[in-house]
């Protein structure tokens, strides 16, 4: 709510909705500006308000945008699209519970009603076992390249083959995380797609220009560890998002493949945390398209 309030207080004209990728996390960074700030500087636009917070996704973005007053100076919304957020590993993650709690308080309803929903736990409360079961169930439904029957079989086979090949346990885990985080087939039933659809609708109603930017993932490492087939799936999913929302009238900045391995800061889990060079490259790509389509 405080981010919504800040956007109102600052009389923002452009709002930027993002997650942890927005921020500087590398100790070596000398430029600690967020992607949002970098875009603002590139555009020479001081009234761009950063509404990013860690681990959020399109569902939360929608509720934050919806809480903004209908009468405001906002004309553009820049929405971050994280390809991992479409997969079970994120949808059923531990972070989803606090996120859903946060989302409840953002709903456009009387505050006491929202609080009642919160205290009566009107959000998913999966146990650790249930989370694991849901992720496995989801992976079993996802098609995988031959010879694997599904993404779960791919994940298990990958773990077995890399362990047999003598890979260190951390690397085996990382390769399997890549499969869990990206081996999914997009369709309109995906909860994040539904959230993005609602964002498009909301922007239409409010008369806001919508810019979506797809975050780059570490395709070099992914290819090295799992193979090019997973990169292909990721790219296909990116194209699905791009095509779907361009058809709906949004500007989509597809930054997939933009960044080299060296600009990613995390080595033990697939994330979109970038060095200052990475953030600047993403920001420039967003700014360039926003500028060209003005």
């Amino acid at each position: 709510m405080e981010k919504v309030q800040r956007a109102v207080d600052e009389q923002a004209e452009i709002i930027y909705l993002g997650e942890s990728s927005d921020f500087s996390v590398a100790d070596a960074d000398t430029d600690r500006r967020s992607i949002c700030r970098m875009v603002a500087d590139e555009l020479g636009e001081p009234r761009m308000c950063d509404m990013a917070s860690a681990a959020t996704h399109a569902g939360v973005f929608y509720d934050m945008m919806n809480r903004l007053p209908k009468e405001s100076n906002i004309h553009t919304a820049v929405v971050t699209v994280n390809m991992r957020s479409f997969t079970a590993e994120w949808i059923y993650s531990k972070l989803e519970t606090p996120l859903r709690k946060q989302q409840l308080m953002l709903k456009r309803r009387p505050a006491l009603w929202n609080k009642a929903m919160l205290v009566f736990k009107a959000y998913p409360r999966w146990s650790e076992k249930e989370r694991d079961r849901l992720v496995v169930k989801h992976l079993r439904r996802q098609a995988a390249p031959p010879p694997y029957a599904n993404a779960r079989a791919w994940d298990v086979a990958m773990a077995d083959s890399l362990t047999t090949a003598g890979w260190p346990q951390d690397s085996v885990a990382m390769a399997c995380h890549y499969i869990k985080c990206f081996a999914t087939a997009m369709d309109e039933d995906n909860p994040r797609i539904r959230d993005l659809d609602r964002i498009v609708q909301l922007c239409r109603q409010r008369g806001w220009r919508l810019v979506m930017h797809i975050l780059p993932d570490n395709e070099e490492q992914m290819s090295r560890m799992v193979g090019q087939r997973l990169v292909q799936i990721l790219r296909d999913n990116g194209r699905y998002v791009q095509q779907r929302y361009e058809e709906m009238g949004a500007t989509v900045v597809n930054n997939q493949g933009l960044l080299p391995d060296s600009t990613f800061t995390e080595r033990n889990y697939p994330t979109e945390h970038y060095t200052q060079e990475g953030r600047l490259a993403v920001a420039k790509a967003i700014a360039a398209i926003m500028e060209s389509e003005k």
Partner: protein
Amino acid sequence: MLFNTIEFLVFLPVVTALFYLLPQRWRWLWLLAASCFFYMWFIPQYILILAATIAIDYEAGLLMERWNDRPRWRRWCLVSSVVSTCVVLFVFKYLNFCSENLVLMAQHFGWAHPQRALNIALPIGLSFHTFQSLSYVIEVYRGNQRAERHAGYYALYVMFYPQLVTGPIERPQNLLRQLHEKKELQADNIARGMRLVLFGLFLKMVVADNIGTLVDQVYAAPQDFGRADIVLAMVLYSFQIYGDFFGYSTIALGCARMMGFTLTDNFRTPYLADSIREFWHRWHISLSTWFRDYLYIPLGGNRVKLPRWMLNTMVVFTVCGIWHGANWTFMLWGAAYGVLLIVEKLAGSKNGRWRWMHVALTFTAVTLLWTVFRAPSLGALADIYGALIHGGGNSHLNIGAPLIVALAAFIAIDVLTRRTRFDEWCGRMAAPLRWTIYALMAFAIVAFGSVEQHPFIYFQF
């Protein structure tokens, strides 16, 4: 399904309304289906365990009645039923603990141990419904209860949703009889039931859960807190567990009351007890009377010589401790109560003029023992008592004003209702005052109810 969730707020009125709308002959089926649904909300497959114990004990009840003139066969029937129920309890509740300790022992003595520690999940409420089943077969064996011929009614007696997972542990003479009775829709029952549900939710969500957030901080890192804060956390835990368990029992009573059923009261101002003996007459009454009737009295009760009585007391309270959980801390907790009761008996009668001092002493002993109960292991227990002795941490507990007010309200209501129950006490008030209390409680739940997830403490048993 948890009582303090949105699902339950839908479940309760739907189940109650349909119960009254259906003709009497279908009500048992509706309640049984609703109870199954309630239980399966947690982990569906565990209903099979419940079904197995229900089938065994139902059949045992019928056989014992059929073999009325064959005492030996009846006894064998009782023993088989009790053993099979206890085996289920042992496998799901104590086997992990035994295997862990065997592995530890083997490691300690350097024995070859092919056995690995097991990891069997405990079905929710297992200890409660197994004790309720045992109560039925023992009462049928003793001739105090006729065997239930209708399998559906017997299943409903074990599975009646308000008290299925955390009690009160009902006797067949009370619940089974009521299940057969035709219940008419009465405004008074609905009003009293709703009052109890509201009060129970207040105790759980405002008092117990908010205290839980504070107490968890201290138990997670006792060395970070000073002595005063550790003492405060210990005292607060006494109110957390009381609010939590009393809250659950009150909601259970309320849900049953709305359909016209009266369940056993589980608490009667336990912290006003002036002795440990008295405390156990007021705390978790359905369990303490269960142990009294099915273990303590068969062992000879208090009609035996002092050494034998001491042994019986130790056995009963150690078993009571183990019933709570498969952990050395629970065993220690139960055994400590046995020792205190023996000391109390040896010390002789109390002087009535010093009653409040005895109340304070009893509360102190109970609070110190709740610390044993709360500690996840003996090591953690040593840590908290170590921190209490040495002190030194700089962190402080931050109790907000709403919690202080809620706790004061809880204590005040507990004292005021010591000879009655909340629903009766409230019902005697003038309407404006009564509605003010409802409004304040409802507001407190919504505005100050904890947003953290604290499962009911007794769920783990």
